[in-house]
């Protein structure tokens, strides 16, 4: 009788490979396939991200067709076609039907996909839920025809299996088409394919994307620019971001003969001298061959690398969107909502977090068709990829919620949380390594360095919003005054003079008393032949004024502008021009005009107007000249400004009686009998 199996033998009998299928089943939610709605979105997202990455790498303007069609009640067919470089026949099976296979995992630069899981996971999900193979069509430019492969992922071996293969003619020079049939549910609204494609179009204004939905609705997002974003450079790994395993991998793989040379040439930020110093600190001979550094010596090396003072990681491996394109992307996609204000987008300089460079960009849109009574929309992006799920768990949302938006003109309960108002925030985090909360890459994890940058960028954007809102409220205040002096006063004079049987009085003194401002009106007028800014400066104050007017335009706009009359001075590099205006009597007005070539990309918001010779409280439509302009003002202007300030102080002393028509007085009586 054989002896009974030992415990160790019993345990050994249970040890076996976990199949890929089991792994997938157990990790559905971290991969983004835990329900039919999310599975569809993840599939579209992986295919779209891959397509844009591929086209950009080949320096082709991405052109995507995303089709979602209904197969049965529970099954959808998703097809994404791109104009990328195409994939070589021999690579197709591995790219689409093998987990953890990819070209970017080891590269140290910003890219949409990184892990080599995404699209293969979608293929696997399709295989598992509908037993249908993925159908891949791809053509590279140097071949005449396209290869069509039907693939399944062998879940035992994590290997692709080609079910069928064909060669067809395809009417495009190069490109790839992925077709999957999967168990999924189509929705519209938030977290829908349309939502995803729209968001993608905003931060990728160089892409043209067409979406065809199951009901046949076809939505086209045209590209807003033909400039491809510069390809992020691949850079050497920086010691700050290095883990022990990675260091070992690099040491093993390098061709450098000595460890000193490896440190100085295969890593970023390590000079030959600092390599020597830190090797000495780690007690490793500089001439040691890299492959011989093992185990405990690797740890010592990593410790002294981390302790050394090294050059900061370079940031040219990042590909920010840039403030110009954020604005264009937002305007291109949100134009139909007619927002009243697109804030100048904020692009923070790159910073480093744990050895990896990163940067934050923020855009703000306000007003128009955006709902005023709901929480603002936050469009979150990581490396130009929209984040649609887990908003509440995301570092971006937290940074938004930690800012007191009431100071910037939005409503916010208790001064924290997502604010309420007709606004939309775009927040983009670009990095070679985004700290996601999970493999599904749906939310960014908290990090003090990142949070600091997010806060600074949000504050800068919020300040633009506050400026806009305060200008708007001053405009409303002005329009109220204009209504009084232009419509109501003349009628009041007419009615009362008729009743008393006398001629209507001259209203100039009353008008200037009511207004008591110098008003600068400078709209942008677009005509086919040119764009003009007809500027009117009116002295609605009771005293004559000598004023100096200053304009600040984007320098490229100033370069093509002509003025009538000519300015008394300009500073082209700074985009500045100025005029000494003729003396303005009470109610007096002077005009000047700025002419620009047709279609000049300029808005009233892009031009700042400043006036010297009158204090801020008596100025509308312009701001007082900032102190840092360092302009020598004519003596008359300085004197006028001083006199005006004295006037204002004197006027402030006169006390006002209760306003009879203020809400309080009439409301309490309305409440009564």
């Amino acid at each position: 009788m054989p002896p009974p199996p030992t415990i160790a033998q019993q345990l050994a009998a249970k040890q076996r490979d976990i199949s890929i299928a089991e792994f997938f089943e157990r990790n559905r939610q971290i991969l983004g396939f835990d329900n039919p709605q999310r599975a569809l979105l993840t599939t579209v997202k992986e295919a779209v991200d891959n397509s844009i990455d591929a086209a950009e790498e080949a320096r082709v303007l991405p052109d995507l067709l995303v089709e979602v069609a209904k197969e049965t009640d529970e099954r959808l067919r998703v097809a994404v076609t791109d104009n990328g470089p195409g994939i070589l026949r021999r690579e197709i099976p591995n790219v689409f039907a093998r987990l953890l296979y990819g070209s970017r995992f080891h590269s140290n630069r910003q890219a949409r996909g990184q892990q080599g899981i995404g699209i293969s996971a979608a293929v696997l999900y399709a295989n598992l839920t509908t037993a249908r193979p993925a159908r891949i069509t791809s053509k590279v430019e140097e071949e005449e025809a396209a290869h069509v492969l039907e693939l399944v992922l062998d879940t035992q071996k994590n290997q692709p299996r080609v079910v069928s293969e064909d060669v067809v003619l395809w009417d495009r020079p190069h490109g790839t088409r992925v077709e999957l049939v999967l168990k999924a549910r189509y929705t519209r609204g938030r977290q829908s394919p349309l939502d995803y494609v729209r968001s993608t179009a905003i931060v990728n204004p160089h892409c043209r994307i067409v979406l065809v939905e199951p009901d046949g609705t076809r939505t086209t997002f045209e590209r807003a620019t033909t400039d491809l974003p510069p390809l992020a450079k691949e850079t050497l790994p920086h010691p700050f971001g290095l883990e022990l395993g990675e260091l070992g991998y690099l040491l093993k793989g390098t061709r450098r003969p000595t460890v000193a040379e490896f440190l100085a040439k295969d890593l970023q930020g390590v000079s030959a001298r600092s390599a020597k110093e830190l090797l000495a600190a780690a007690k490793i001979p500089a001439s040691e061959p890299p492959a011989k550094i093992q185990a405990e010596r690797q740890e010592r090396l990593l410790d002294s690398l981390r302790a050394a003072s090294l050059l900061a990681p370079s940031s040219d491996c990042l590909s920010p969107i840039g403030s110009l394109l954020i604005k264009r992307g937002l305007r291109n996609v949100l134009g139909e909502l007619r927002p009243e204000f697109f804030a100048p987008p904020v692009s923070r300089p790159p910073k480093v977090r744990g050895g990896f460079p990163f940067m934050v960009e923020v855009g703000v849109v306000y007003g128009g068709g955006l709902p005023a009574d709901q929480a603002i929309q936050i469009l979150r992006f990581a490396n130009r990829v929209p984040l649609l799920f887990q908003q509440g768990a995301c570092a971006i949302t937290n940074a938004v919620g930690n800012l007191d938006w009431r100071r910037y003109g939005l409503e916010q309960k208790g001064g924290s949380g997502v604010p309420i108002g007709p606004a939309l925030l775009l927040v983009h985090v670009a990095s070679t390594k985004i700290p996601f909360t999970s493999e599904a890459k749906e939310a960014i994890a908290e990090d003090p360095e990142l949070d600091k940058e997010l806060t600074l960028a949000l504050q800068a954007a919020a300040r633009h919003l506050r400026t806009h809102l305060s200008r708007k409220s001053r405009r409303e205040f002005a329009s109220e005054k204009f209504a009084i002096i232009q419509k109501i006063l003349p009628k009041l004079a007419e009615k009362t003079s008729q009743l008393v049987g006398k001629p209507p009085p001259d209203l100039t003194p009353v008008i200037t008393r009511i207004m008591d401002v110098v008003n600068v009106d400078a709209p942008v007028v677009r005509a086919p032949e040119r764009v003009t800014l007809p500027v009117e400066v009116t002295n609605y104050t009771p005293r004559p004024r000598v004023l100096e007017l200053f304009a600040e335009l984007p320098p490229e706009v100033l370069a093509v502008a002509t003025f009538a009359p000519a300015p008394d001075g300009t500073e082209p590099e700074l985009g500045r021009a100025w005029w000494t205006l003729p003396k303005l009597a009470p109610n007096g007005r002077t005009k000047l005009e700025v002419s620009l070539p047709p279609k000049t990309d300029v808005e009233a918001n892009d031009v700042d107007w400043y006036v010297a010779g009158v204090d801020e409280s008596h100025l509308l439509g312009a701001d007082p000249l900032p102190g840092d302009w360092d302009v020598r003002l004519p003596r008359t202007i300085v004197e006028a400004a001083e006199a005006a300030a004295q006037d204002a102080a004197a006027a402030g002393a006169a006390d006002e009686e209760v306003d009879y028509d203020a809400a309080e007085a009439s409301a309490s009586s309305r409440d009564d009998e």
Partner: protein
Amino acid sequence: MPPKRARAAATTSDDEPKIRADALRPTLALAKQIYEQLDDGEIPRMRLPLRTKQNLSFQMREGVWKLGKAMGTRSARKLDGALMLLRTFYLVDFINEMARDRKTSTLRELYYISEGWEEAKFHSEDESNLLIEDLEVLCQRLREDFRLHPEENGASVIGDLTIKERNRKGQVKRINCRDDVGDGGYSLPFNVEKEKISFVGTNAKFVIAIECGGMVDRLAENGFDEDQKAILIHLKGQPARSTRRFLKRLTEELELPVVVFTDGDPWSFRIFASVAFGAIKTAHISNYLATPGAEFLGVTASDIENYELPSDALSDQDVRALQAELTDPRFATAEWRSEIELMLKNGKKAEQQSLAKYGLNYVTEHYLPEKLNQMGVL
């Protein structure tokens, strides 16, 4: 508890003929004032006494609450003020036009007339009513002097009261408000002045002013007016000016005491206040509308407890209304304060018809006789 107030000496309406004199002259004075300001280069403005709760002051001589000395300015410096100034003269124009054409207009018609006033048109009837009251204050006239009147709202009177009414055709009709009218009673016109209505005589001993129509019907059906020699007047919620004026004339000319019988809630207290003390909105003519001798019969907060009446919990709005009453100078007597505080403490309100809990006759056979005896009216 009923809150007792010293019955003020009934005021005779000596100043009445003054009020009803030529209304156009003061409106022209207003136009002249604004014209001169414009001509002098001043921002046009008018000063008006504030018609707020805080600006009520008690007039010893008349025993009513009138406007105090706090003034506000309506100025063309602000859009709202400028619009109200302009509306004032559209209104003056319209009044002149009506005087020329011998027409009158309802308040609601005026609101629609303003459709032709361009930016000066009224946005709500509240706005036009407020402006008319402003004009009353500024010109020391009544809106009827400006040929403006409310729609007939026909508060009804039931009881042995004989009056003479001059009708639209100028005929004088003699009417007894019990024998010559249907079940609906005699309907008050908007004008209840002497030239329209005069009193012939009555056998009644007192007047009972009632908030709800259902209770008026109950008392009439039970023959309360005949049994107790009472005149029933239906207030229809917050009473119209004509109803309040009629009550005042009844006490002054026929020397009848007035008691007010309402629901037991904060809003009913305000109904009583407008009858007895004078309303905030019409404080400028309180001496003409208020009946200082009127007394509150109930339903009081203590009635709800003593009679164990079916009640509802006070709503948030009710509580706010009671708290506002605690800062209202008209309710600043010990009796009213304790009444309001008791209601706040118990947190309950009740309708007058909740007395039906004890049967249809309970109110006329038990509740009213008991209360009226306590008050010394019966």
